[in-house]
């Protein structure tokens, strides 16, 4: 276990693993997202209250979940990098930031489009919507902070600190619908008891979630290779990697 953990700190090892995993992640992600979209848009029945507008769930919820998951990954990577001084962890955090920001933007856009027919407005300063918007600002802040320093190592450390501090926003997003009065509906799938969604609607949604997770894995692998190459440009192994 620890040997594997230490191996993950090795840039050439991580570069090789990322290159090998990327096509598999992308292939399975395409299948899962394809199944999820067809199942959700074609075969799932309309919702008894929201009609076909509920189908926005198949892109809104995966994007919203991923916006939180990627941020948490970024914060954990930042903590690992600061505690164990593992440079690859900084590369993981740097590679994750633009991906997470794009998922957050998509969650906000699709949520806003869903809000108009259901709530009568594209935007409300509701706790869930506001905390998700703060998440987008956090992503932008982390990316800006990383590139604001001439010394990349200082930029990495500052960005890691901000991402760790900002992780407090994740439980706020999750529990905002419980703690405060909210226009946003409560948990539908991730409930401790039985999910309050029919199986024919749930399976495509879970497939979308798996697809988005694997898609994140694939894009992370690509960006991580680029980050590692940029950071290790002076290393001897890069010569072989660039030639291949």
């Amino acid at each position, binding site marked *: 276990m620890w040997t594997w953990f230490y191996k993950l700190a090795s840039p050439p090892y991580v570069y090789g693993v990322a290159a090998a995993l990327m096509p598999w992640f*992308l292939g399975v992600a395409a299948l899962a*997202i394809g199944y999820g*979209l067809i199942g959700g*848009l*074609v075969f799932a029945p*309309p919702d008894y209250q929201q*009609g*076909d*507008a509920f*189908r*926005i769930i198949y*892109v*809104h919820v995966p*994007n919203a979940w991923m916006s939180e998951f990627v941020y948490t990954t970024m914060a954990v990577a930042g903590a690992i990098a600061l505690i164990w001084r593992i440079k690859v962890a900084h590369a993981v955090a740097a590679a994750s930031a*633009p*991906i997470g920001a*794009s*998922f957050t*933007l*998509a969650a906000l*856009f*699709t949520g806003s*489009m*869903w809000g*108009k*027919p259901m709530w009568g407005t594209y935007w409300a300063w509701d706790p869930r919507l506001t905390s998700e918007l703060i998440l987008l600002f956090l992503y932008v802040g982390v990316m800006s902070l990383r590139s604001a320093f001439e010394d990349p190592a200082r930029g990495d450390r500052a960005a890691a600190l901000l991402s760790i501090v900002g992780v407090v926003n994740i439980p706020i997003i999750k529990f905002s619908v419980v703690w405060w009065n909210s226009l946003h509906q409560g948990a539908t799938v991730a409930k401790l008891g039985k999910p309050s969604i029919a199986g024919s609607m749930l399976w495509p949604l879970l497939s979308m979630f798996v697809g988005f997770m694997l*898609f994140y894995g*694939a*894009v992370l692998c*690509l*960006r991580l*290779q*680029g*980050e590692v*190459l*940029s950071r290790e*440009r*002076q290393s001897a192994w*890069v*010569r072989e*990697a*660039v030639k291949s």
Partner: protein
Amino acid sequence: MNSGFWSMGGYARYVWPCIAFACAVLAWNLWSARRFLAAARSRAGRAIAMADAEGKAR
């Protein structure tokens, strides 16, 4: 596909832009990540070529 599918029960102007935006975000992610990796490879290749040229000059 029947017209009911495309009209999404009257919610087409909300549903389809969401699907399109989400697909565009996925496509942008893939395109920008590939571009980022290609640029990093190119920069590393240039750095190696410069180092080799300096080595030969000596």
